[in-house]
């Protein structure tokens, strides 16, 4: 089952890489203000929140406009937490989604050309920072895709920050580094990783692009934050080894499946790597009694 899952992911990515049009950043001199899966008002962002040096938001790729929703549209009782949202079909079942936009003019045509002005950035929708959302949705597999897989590389010399690793049991949570021993039992690993903002002082919770955890030298999980899909009513990120996919809650906390920690000395090693290839690794040693 794991092998099948690996193959399907590899195949999906191969198809995407071969058939998807190359993307350009939808804003000039772009700054990342929200990574794929990082929290926005207690829910994970299913894309990238960006901010450009100038407020123009441009089409990252050509596409057919399939949906526009403005908050003022009273034809539906459903509010628009995404503010104004525009979806353009990029081909091969991949939809380019632009959201948290202020009011936009009627595009006047069904096709959006690459680089065409989509909107001018402004406060819109349920977004707690200055920026807009850009994401990709794979209609065929019903998954959000991290656009960083297809966007030009952004230079970044800052390694991820591992803020927290704990073992969460039914009644108690053990934070690594704060005690030398824990009772034997089943625990789920909870991890918080963050990145330094461009300003250098603010720490932004963010799921790492790549995460590997070893327990006593054996690989527990290897996770790539590249796609996200809804499983039983919750947004989950793909994981290669753990039986259940890793789950993000709205605060940037990554929770892995529960496992039994038997008696004896235990070493946990964690490696986190961001999209730019910057790595951080940490280890903890404790005794299970």
């Amino acid at each position, binding site marked *: 089952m794991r092998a099948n899952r690996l193959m399907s992911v590899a195949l999906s990515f191969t198809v995407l890489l071969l058939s998807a049009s190359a993307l350009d950043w939808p804003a000039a001199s772009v700054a990342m203000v929200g990574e794929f899966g990082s929290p926005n008002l207690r829910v994970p962002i299913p894309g990238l929140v960006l901010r450009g040096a100038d407020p123009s938001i441009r089409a990252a790729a050509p596409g057919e406009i399939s949906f526009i929703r403005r908050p003022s549209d009273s034809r539906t009782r459903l509010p628009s937490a995404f503010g104004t949202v525009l979806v353009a079909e990029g081909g091969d079942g991949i939809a380019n989604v632009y959201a948290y936009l202020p009011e936009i003019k009627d595009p006047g045509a069904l096709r959006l050309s690459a680089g065409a002005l989509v909107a001018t950035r402004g406060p819109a929708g*349920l977004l707690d920072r200055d920026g807009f959302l850009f994401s990709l949705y794979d209609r065929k597999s019903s998954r959000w895709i991290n656009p960083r897989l297809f966007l030009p590389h952004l230079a970044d010399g800052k390694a991820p920050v591992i803020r927290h690793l704990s073992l969460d049991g039914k009644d108690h949570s053990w934070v690594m580094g704060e005690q030398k021993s824990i009772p034997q039992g089943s625990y789920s690993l909870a991890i918080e990783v963050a990145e330094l903002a461009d300003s250098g002082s603010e720490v932004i919770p963010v799921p790492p692009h790549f995460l590997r955890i070893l327990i006593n030298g054996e690989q527990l999980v290897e996770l790539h934050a590249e796609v996200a899909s809804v499983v039983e009513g919750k947004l989950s990120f793909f994981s290669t080894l753990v039986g259940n996919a890793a789950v993000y809650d709205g605060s940037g906390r990554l929770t892995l499946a529960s496992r039994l920690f038997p008696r004896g000395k235990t070493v946990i090693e964690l490696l986190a790597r961001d999209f730019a290839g910057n790595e951080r690794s940490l280890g903890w040693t404790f005794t299970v009694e």
Partner: protein
Amino acid sequence: MVAAADRRSLRTWYPEDLQVQEDLGQRGMRQGMEEQARRRVTGILVSLFALAYFFVCAIPLPKVFSLKPIWASPIISDNLPESSSSAATGPLLPFSIGGSFGYFDTARGLRFASRIPGGVSLSREGYAAYDRVPATIQWRDVQGKLLFETEAAAYPFMAGGRRFTLAADQATVTELDGAGKELWRRTFPSMLTAFDASPAMALFGTFDGRLLGLSREGQILVDFVPGGSRIDCVFGAAVSPDGKTIAAVTGLDRQRIVVMERRNESYRVTWHRYTGSDYRRPVAMAFSPSGDMLSYEMPDGFGLYDVLKRTERLLVAREPSHPGAAIASKGVMLALEDGPKGDLLAFSHEGTRYFTYGFAALEASLEIEGDSVFLGVRQDSGMDLLRLDFGEE
């Protein structure tokens, strides 16, 4: 001088002629009598035919309706009218127009009005006004009294007597009970694009073309992808008050309308049609209060689908809004036509146009209670609420 011979011949002729004339006269009399009889019979037959036609072939005269103005009330935001200090005498109904919202007393007029901060969700049970990024949501009743407060960075919305919030991902919905306690919470497979609710079912449509209906306990009652188009997306959704019938406008190239009815414990498609439309934004559609008629936007007006007969009629109108409004007791459907010259159109269920009530408006809203129509009208000079009562002549 006639010769004697001629006279004789005449005398000889004359008696025969006289006889002929006598015969002619008698014949004439007979003919006259016969003619009279024929005329009498013809007259009787015509009368009988007319009588039969009157009863058998008569077409009823069309109904004639009138709209009688009852009151007009100016809308001035954040300025409570005098009537608000006394108890309401009629039901309180919501309005939202020109960046303002509030409630009016059906008997007297405006009760209160406020500017919309970031957004507002209105219903006949209460409202919730909120900032663009709210720290909390205050849920109030129609009088403005605080019912409860929820601490959630989410947008409130209501329908079918039910309360929901939508999170920042446009996909996570929470339903609340009357005290603000969470009943269920779910993240949908993709961005939500359509919604409607009745007490029995909350129906959601997604941007990748899925229809999901949930009970008040959050159980899935229907999970269906209509498909059949090059691009799947749900643009409009409606659920009947009893939850037994649902409808949606879905897809691009080609776009279609789908109606599903509950059969035992599952929902089956009972009617669908490719509409020829190409809407790429939300589509208005709604069931009538009785649930037996569905109205929905169409390029040249709107469609009326009879749920019981499974037949459809297309009614011509200029970009109508509120296509589902109805005066139930009179069997009249109403629609507001968008545009600088707002028209209120009245139709029968069969598509007969009764009348058009014209008025000038930059923006208009419509509410109905019993046989009364309440128009919100925004013009350059200001905003007003009007009550017009339907009468049948």
